[in-house]
């Protein structure tokens, strides 16, 4: 199995992931192409975070490797890679006060020139990223004073501000109200359509994934994975199997949703 190609894009080749002695994923070969929005789904501990971190190059895989634009991930210098892919980690650290604007502006680090100060273009990029997620009014606020959902959207804006064509987002919708979840996914879809871009996000809401993602990667935490167009992967059968609880697909008026097949209430 070889994904060696001149194709511009991200691909995993025979990738294996492990947590301790437990195999999370093995022999996983998959290309992530421009224009695709991938939802990484699976039960807790299935390896969603590990996969995103491995694709970002923060963690070495247990086996196999990742190819970026035809070159192995490990050969990319950190600065170049930071312009190629952005990662929004699940855990955020705010030990010190900082304004929302400065927090987002930090993502321009890969583009800083000789003396390490931002140029006007960097500030414009930060303002644009804040506007994308409706955060312009919060620009002057202290990040320590934000609610969980506001902080989460600031982190999303920061990832976008890095201006890399691949976004790896670990639980970007956590802490968000439903309408913000939909707003954020809509904004990401618009961002995706504006260039040769790819998004991978981990998510627990299968219905949002079915609605907004083009592709899905379902991990079952026991080493198996299904990848492909979202409608083929997030089916009631596969999702029931992966999550260990029966799910049914309900259709009504052109919309559909996966629901737990729980016992009827009397």
């Amino acid at each position, binding site marked *: 199995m070889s994904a060696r190609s001149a194709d511009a894009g991200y691909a995993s080749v025979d990738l294996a992931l492990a947590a301790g002695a437990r195999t999370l994923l093995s022999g996983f070969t998959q290309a992530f192409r421009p224009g695709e929005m991938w939802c990484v789904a699976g039960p807790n501990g299935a390896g969603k975070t590990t996969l995103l*971190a491995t694709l*970002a*190059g*923060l*963690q070495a895989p247990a086996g196999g490797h990742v190819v970026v634009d035809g070159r192995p991930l490990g050969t990319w*210098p*950190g*600065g*170049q*890679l*930071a312009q190629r*892919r*952005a*990662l929004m*980690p699940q*855990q*955020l*650290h705010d*030990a*010190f*006060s*900082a*304004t929302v604007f*400065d*927090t987002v502006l*930090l*993502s321009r*680090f*890969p583009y*800083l020139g000789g*003396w*390490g*100060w*931002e140029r006007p273009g960097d500030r414009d990029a930060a303002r644009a990223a804040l506007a994308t997620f409706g955060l312009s009014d919060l620009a002057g*606020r*202290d990040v*320590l*004073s934000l609610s969980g959902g506001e902080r989460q959207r600031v982190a999303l804006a920061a990832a976008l501000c*890095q201006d890399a064509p691949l976004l790896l987002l670990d639980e970007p919708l956590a802490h968000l109200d439903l309408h913000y979840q939909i707003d954020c996914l809509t904004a990401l879809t618009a961002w995706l359509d504006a260039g040769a871009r790819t998004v991978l996000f981990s998510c627990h809401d299968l219905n949002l994934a079915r609605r907004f993602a083009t592709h899905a990667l379902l991990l079952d935490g026991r080493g198996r994975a299904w990848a492909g167009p979202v409608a083929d992967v997030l089916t009631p059968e596969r999702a029931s199997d992966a999550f260990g609880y029966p799910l049914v697909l309900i259709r009504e008026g052109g919309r559909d949703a996966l629901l737990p097949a729980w016992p009827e209430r009397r």
Partner: protein
Amino acid sequence: MSAARAAAIWAALAAAVAALFVASLTLGSVPMSPLDALASLVPHAGADALLGDIVRTLRLPRALAGFACGALLALAGALLQVLLRNPLAEPYVLGVSGGAAGFALVAMIAGSAWWFVDASAFAGALVSMLLVLGLARRELWRGELRDASPRLLLTGVVIAAGWGALVTLLLSLAPDARLRGIIFWLTGDLNGVAPPWFAWGALAFAALVALPAAPQLNVLLRGDATALALGVPVARLRVRIYLVASLAAAAAVTTAGTIGFVGLVVPHALRLAFGNDQRMLLPAAMLAGGGGVMAADLLARTVIAPAQLPVGVMTALVGVPVFLWMLLRKPMR
């Protein structure tokens, strides 16, 4: 924060430092005018030999040593607060001063010459630094996603506590005749300080190594994962910052004993006033810390003149209430 604003902050602080420097040369038990004080820096015909002597051999070395130690401590504090991602970190938190104190006390109890006490202090600081580096090597060297800071901090704090016990033991064994000198050393004292060239050399080295990393430190503050994703070589940066902060603290302790609170309070005060951009903060901390210790030493040798207080008493007397106020005031903005 922009480069222009940072430069304005540095210029204002540098002007304050210059004024404090002149005041340090001018004020004391022998009165003179600021112009006389400056003029007597350079020996020239027709100058008052006594004034020249006082300025050149007494006041100038103290002012220079005070500035260098304060700058080293504030820089080390600012760096460790970033490295440990902890606002309460200060230059001594990882045990550097404890090691220095332990070794220096042994030398003092043995009645060694001042240069041997200094050399012992520096050796002790290095031993403690390498001890923490060895024990926390996984936390410092591996760029894993797991947040390394709490374990590094704990390792350092435990080592520091061990040194503290050793110092208490040595104090209880020390002959009475030596206790006064030991207490002054432990509090931090610039009286009869050795020529400050070692501290200035350390300051130049620390600045050269630390300041270019300031943009990376801004990113490191946001967590290891974010820093790695933005292309910062986290593991290498952490070791570099740990080593330069420890060496800075070691050089300061070697020169003037354990002057407290400067490394904790100065970076915080600057952060509260001007924000937490390390590109501005690190040079500003050096200026403000240096000026702060120079001012504290000026007070220490003038408030109850002709008697002299250890400068560490002054920094602590001012530092404790200031720090409590910063800690207890409402969260900013």
